[in-house]
């Protein structure tokens, strides 16, 4: 059976097409659905193995990035999402999707899904929207679907104004000690460096997962680099030796194929 991925669209979503493309290239069947069709129950989350919330400015990011979408998830789609998670299925949030998952209390969700918000994504240290390519290292964590990629350094852009990950020290310690931090901003050689942190995130955190490792979110955009010709310096590279982010989507789809489909 083919892996089925649902990509969510809400007013203001704007990275949906390239996210569809990334999952399709990774071998999944993909449906792109408006949130209203989930709320009205004409689309059933149960029919899918992967649920992805792509980037954009959901509902204009009025009230803060991803806040209204977080409320929609929490108050309109709570039951289907809880069922989806409990079956071990995968949720991926990219950029605005990550912001919504954090604000809905799904990430990191140390006290259970939808319990309370434990971290946030604040305005960038620079105070402005930033479009910049960054190196992102995948860590060895409780996120099993991505463990095959541990230590891989990916190259992808960040495009956000509110991407600075912050959490209280008690939470941050748990995230560090118990393997919740899936992605970190690093320098080209894989070392953690302040200079290569685009937004001032604590501990260079670019993305995290939940306790069961089946919900994962990140600020940078892997779907923007699934073939080499979107690399900002591809005209200078040896054309064959370019690691792109398609592997990330493949890892999720392969895991879903082995464990869920």
């Amino acid at each position: 059976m083919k892996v089925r991925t649902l990509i969510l669209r809400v007013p203001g979503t704007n990275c949906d097409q390239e996210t569809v493309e990334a999952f399709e290239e990774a071998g999944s069947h993909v449906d792109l659905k408006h949130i209203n069709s989930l709320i009205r129950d004409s689309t059933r989350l149960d029919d899918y193995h992967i649920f992805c919330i792509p980037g954009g400015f959901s509902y204009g990011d009025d009230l803060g990035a991803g806040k209204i979408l977080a409320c929609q998830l929490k108050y309109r789609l709570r039951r289907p999402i809880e069922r989806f998670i409990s079956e071990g299925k995968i949720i991926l949030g990219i950029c605005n999707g990550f912001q919504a998952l954090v604000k809905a209390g799904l990430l990191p969700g140390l006290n259970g899904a939808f319990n309370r918000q434990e971290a946030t994504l604040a305005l960038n240290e620079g105070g402005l929207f930033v479009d910049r390519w960054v190196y992102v290292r995948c860590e060895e964590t409780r996120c099993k679907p991505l463990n095959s990629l541990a230590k891989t350094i990916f190259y992808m852009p960040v495009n956000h104004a509110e991407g600075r990950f912050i959490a209280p020290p008690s939470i941050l310690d748990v995230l560090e000690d118990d393997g919740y931090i899936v992605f970190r901003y690093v320098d080209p050689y894989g070392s953690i460096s302040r200079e290569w942190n685009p937004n001032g995130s604590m501990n260079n955190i670019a993305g995290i997962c939940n306790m069961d490792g089946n919900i994962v979110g990140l600020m940078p955009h892997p779907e923007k680099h699934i073939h080499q010709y979107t690399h900002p310096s591809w005209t200078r590279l040896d054309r064959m030796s370019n690691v792109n982010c398609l592997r990330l989507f493949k890892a999720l789809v392969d895991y879903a194929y082995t464990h869920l489909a």
Partner: protein
Amino acid sequence: MARVGIIPVRDATDRELMDISGRYMLSLSLDEMKAIQAYFRSIGRDPTDVELNTIAQTWSEHCYHKTFKGIIETEDGVIDSLLESYIFKASRELAKPWCLVVFEDNAGIIGLERDWAIAVKVETHNHPTALDPYGGAGTGTGGVFRDVIGVGARPILSIDVLFFGPLDYPYELLPQGVMHPRRVMRGAVAGIRDYGNKMGVPTACGAIGFDEGYVCNPLVYAGCVGIMPFSRYTRKPKPGDLIVLAGGRTGRDGLRGVTFASTELTPDSERVSAVSVQIGNPIEEKKLLDAIMRSRDEYSEPLYSAITDCGGGGLSSAVGEMARGIGAEVELSLVPLKYRGLEPWEIWLSESQERMVLAVPEENIDRLMRIFGEEDCEATVIGRFTSTRRLKVYYDGEVVCDLDLEFLFKGIPRVRRKAYWKPPHEEDPDFPMPEDLMDILKHMLSDPNIASKEWVIRQYDHEVQARMVVKPMVGIHGDGPSDACILKPLRDSWIGVVVSCGVNPKYSSHPYKMALSVVDESVRNNVAVGGRRIALLDNFSWGNPERGETLGALVEAVKGCYDAAKAFDTPFISGKDSLYNEYRLPDGSYRSIPGTLLITAVGIIPDVRRAVTMDFKEPGNPIYIVGNTRCELGGSYYYSTIGVRGGIIPSVDLKNAKLIMDGIVEAIDLGYVKSCHDCSEGGLAVALAESCFSGGLGVEVWLSEVSRLDLARDDKILFSESNSRFIVEVRRGREDDFEKIFYGLPCRKIGYTTSGSRLVIHGLDGKIYEEDIWVFKKAWKSTFNW
């Protein structure tokens, strides 16, 4: 009782007519008021305020382009319409089969491959930006997106070209009512950022310039490229089709924007015309886009028979244009409002943002309404197209406007204007050559016009949609200045769309040569990355055309556009003019912008994998300069940096220029070119420095090898801004093949790239100029390190 006023024009004297034009802010001339008077005399009644305003919007310079369509008397004879005689004429004569829709709709449309087509539009939003930089620039962007959506295309690129006063302009010299350029720039950039980023349209092409002429009148050119399946293009509303108003609600923002844009600004503009600036909400427009794309694609045919943007002139213009040749009836009380209390004429004229008008056959209305409902986007039937050839508007069942469409669109008396032009005297000044040319180069690199705009570019999202193959910033550190951007719009094809600009107000003292130069610049930027089969858009921002010299300069520029388009084989597909960019001071004196012509070039590249960027790639590669360097330093950054006046504005050798461009494309296609950068502002020296620090490599060149005419001074060779020139890094071992392509054309090897970080230039008499490339980069990046 309908809240509608009757305005007695039938018995008005000339003076009273002009009073009426002033009181209702119609911006109409006496001739035009008299034409209106004659019409209402003939039908035996006086107009309502709705009717009078409808006519004023339709006849405004902004909507009708009466100067460009008018009769112009020059010393060389009478020009019957600048558009017909030059701009359209070039496109007609070039007759390209891939030009699908040219100057007929909201955007120009050209073929791409198979059924796919590209829609392009560039607009200006100068007046609103002067009053409200954030709102004005943002809604300019939103408006041009809607122009592209209005032909049924999905926006894939946002273009922005901005001009402001000098950022260090002294506050005490600012005329009353004028904001400081720094504030205008911050606001405009933020407005474009928030609209483009939220709509999810990458902003990746443009320019920012500074000149004292823009202190009172900043310029904002906003452009958009979209993609569409051309078989889904439809613009034939039929009698009986329903008129659907979709998107945002209607409020009092944006009243009389087009008539406001057709006059000069004054210190009172903010008080009188603040309501002319619209209030934008990009998410509303994103919902509208999503709903329209579904209405276009979900069934075997689009659910609408025609669609248009509700922009300048509001409903009066959108419905009026669509009703041309058929007729329409509208009930204004059905229009959803932001708040209560709008007069009928306000509803009819409001330019509230994020609205589109669709003509929908009755059998499709349920499907359309379902789609809009699912997308949380409001859509309302407000009337119906008819076959009466009349524009009939009701409010609560009472007629408030009943106009003959023939009169509305053809009743405007043609303007007759006089134009004078005297070519300026040009002479290259004599002055001793400065000692430290590298220090001057450093200063030029930090000139705000040349310096890195990274601070701005990084605030714009240029990655969204993941189609950007050549980005605005390229090179080893991803921050070198790209000549053009390339998009790969289709998932299943390697074809690319190449977009570039040309603009240079420093040449405005010689508008004919300026036009040649900016067409050349836009084309060579396009060619430098591998673009060909280029279509052009012309956007004029000019002063008051009622003044003979100002209009004369405009005529010269238009002539240059025609000659250049013909020579480069590049048709115009769309364009727009914004006149009256002037500021009237209380003492009666005025300040005008320099005549500013923006040319946007849209080319294609059959395989984006062949694209070339401007950063030097490897040490030891030969460096060529293609094109002749002449003593053309009028308006140059060299002269302005060292404070020298005069000089000869660069011209274009139209015959050779086209051959050079073709040669570059051929060399790129054959894989001989490792990097290519055009020489423009700052000439050869700036181009070399940029390619060096963008590639992290040094270069060593000999000025004696540069092919040049009438030039025997190091400084002038280095800084001349002659057109049609490229710096090309050629693949080692391909020198002969490369030179063969340019047989008979100026093409000379001037040196090679080096592995160090030194820029080394050997002067004519053996003097060596030398500097570290990182020193140049630092200077280039320091200006906008905000």
